[in-house]
């Protein structure tokens, strides 16, 4: 399924391994690239905003190329720069003051502030619609300028929505897994750097960042007035033996059925 008259851009970032902290292909961004390649094939444009001469970042970008992309455009920005401004300027400059039809991103970055604001800011600045945490794009209708999108909901549920083009979609972990990155294509692919323009993120430079501490477990607060109540709260078993026991086949089935109906499972 290839839509030749549609422009599709996927934004990639440099991920960070949760345990070792090594740069890697970001999981959600890789899913976005996979989805883009499924829909647009070779016409998918891939864009990275960040420092071009960073060796570790380049290694991570190469693993996206290893998925079969011919090139990644690198918008060269300094480390401290606000990537948002640079990207907005890039899109306004390269798409004749129009935006691409579909921009695919991850839900949030794996390093830095990781606020998940990128798709929303980009959509606001470029006048696009934003659909959050999608699992798949089912179909695109270029004539009607609409797309059918599957959104990922909690508990493995999916919701179908119709979105009018152009839109920004953030791709959730529920999307199909990305293909493996191969060594040959990763080395053959090109990283085309281009000078970007942005401003430094001044506000962020005042923040302090530290390794995440384990959050304290919430304590059960006992507001008993008397010693007897406090003693009871400290020694009482946690609501044991409250279950209902039913005998008999038909009665049991009816009781379970009633419970399922009450919980809204049917």
């Amino acid at each position, binding site marked *: 399924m290839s839509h030749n008259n549609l422009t599709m851009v996927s934004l990639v970032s440099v991920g*960070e391994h*949760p345990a070792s*902290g090594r740069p890697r292909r970001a999981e959600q961004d890789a899913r976005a690239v996979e989805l883009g390649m499924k829909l647009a094939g070779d016409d998918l444009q891939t864009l990275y905003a960040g420092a071009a001469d960073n060796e570790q970042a380049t290694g991570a970008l190469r693993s996206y190329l290893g998925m079969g992309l011919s090139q990644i455009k690198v918008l060269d920005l300094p480390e401290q720069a606000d990537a948002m401004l640079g990207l907005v300027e890039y899109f306004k400059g390269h798409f004749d003051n129009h935006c691409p039809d579909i921009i695919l991103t991850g839900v949030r*970055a*794996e*390093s830095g502030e*990781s*606020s998940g*604001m990128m798709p*929303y*800011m980009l*959509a*606001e600045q470029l006048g696009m*619609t*934003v659909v*959050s*945490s999608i699992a798949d794009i089912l179909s695109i209708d270029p004539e009607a300028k609409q797309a*059918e999108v599957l*959104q990922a*909901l*909690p*508990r*493995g*549920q*999916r*919701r*179908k*929505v*119709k*979105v009018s083009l152009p839109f920004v979609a953030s791709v959730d972990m529920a999307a199909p897994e990305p293909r493996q990155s191969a060594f040959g294509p990763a080395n053959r692919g090109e990283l085309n750097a281009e000078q970007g323009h942005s401003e430094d993120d001044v506000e962020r430079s*005042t*923040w*302090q*960042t*530290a*390794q*995440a501490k384990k*959050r304290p477990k919430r304590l059960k607060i006992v*507001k008993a007035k008397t010693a*007897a109540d406090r003693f009871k709260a400290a020694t009482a078993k946690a609501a044991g033996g*409250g*279950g*209902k*026991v*039913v*005998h*008999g*086949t*038909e009665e*049991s*089935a009816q*009781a*379970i*059925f009633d*419970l*399922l109906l009450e*919980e*809204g*499972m*049917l």
Partner: protein
Amino acid sequence: MSDIFRRDPRAEWIARNRLHPLYQAIQQGPVYGPSGLLRKNLHGIGFIGPNGLKRIDRSGDSSGEMSGRRGGGQAQAAVVLPLHQVSEPDFTIVVALDLVSGRLNGHDKDTLGLAQQLANRDGANGAVIALAFGELKDDTLGEAGVDRLIHLSDDQYNDYDPEQRCSDLSAIVEHFNPQYVLLPDSINGGGDLGRRLAAKLSLRPACGVWKVDNDSIVCRGSAGKSDITRPLSRLLLVMEECSEPVSETRHEQLALTVESDRAVSKIVDHGNVKVDPNAIPLGEAGFILSGGNGIADWSGFHNAATVLGATEGASRVAVDDGFMPRTRQVGATGTWVTAQVYIAVGISGAIQHMQGIGQCDKVVAINTDEGCDMVKRADLSAIGDSSEILANLIGLVEQHKAGASKDVA
């Protein structure tokens, strides 16, 4: 009357003599000693137990049986919390609630708790305005810390329409000019709505806030790998357990009305898609039918799971015996599940299995052995042959489905 305490030697004498005919009458009121001190009548405390021994229950449970001073008349009434009123607030705080299926969840309550903490810190006089979209089944919003309530309940809010909600929320923020705007940073809509609002109003939000200290906050960054300490910002997307929920006061929950403009919506909701229950990851599934050693008829079990629309799970024995794949194993050595309803068929409940289902809401046990651990844990236990019970249950469910489709037609 004079305050001087006067002794009544005759009454004292009667009170000392339990065999006196007037003893019962004298015992009615409080007894004072010679110096005017209140005397407890230890003989009056407690009750006579079933085997004739005196029992004193200090837990206050058996108030009906107690003949002592804390007797039946003083029944445990529901505690009425003091009402916290804010008639003329100095500032406001807006909280947009998630309200999953119309009820407050823990995340909403924590968010409201933090809002109240910010509204009342250093003796400030702020009001918390809660914003509820769509259906609202909960009437305990006042106890959760809502001073003012804006409830937008038109039909359009029942569908997924984030743009309409965002436009309403931004209109409310512009109208009330709140000091802070708080939303739960959740996957149930709060995180999405908060970020939309931030983009619309060009505010820089603080996402994943889990701690507020005076004027600085701690947020989770780098997808949970780092803590960022930064100044308090106006728009906060807070994590669960960021603050204690309100528990000591009641709030007014005054209804406010605002006009909402119809926003141009570019996203049209087409409803939830039917998903194959077995494609849902076990750890996420909301309804699990789990089978163990007690199952003789596995095809009947699979059939039941299909009819009920439940995700299949298994105990370790069932997996080891080759009836189910390893990926379906529930328990400490398999997957830790969080289902809303968990039906354990023929599972006696090894400790590892019980650990794995610790977070499940409602547990149903179908077992032949009434004394097993699973029955002790379960909210509902059906004692009997599992295949017969499941067959009956399938019958009931199919009957229910047929009835429902007849109603539609």
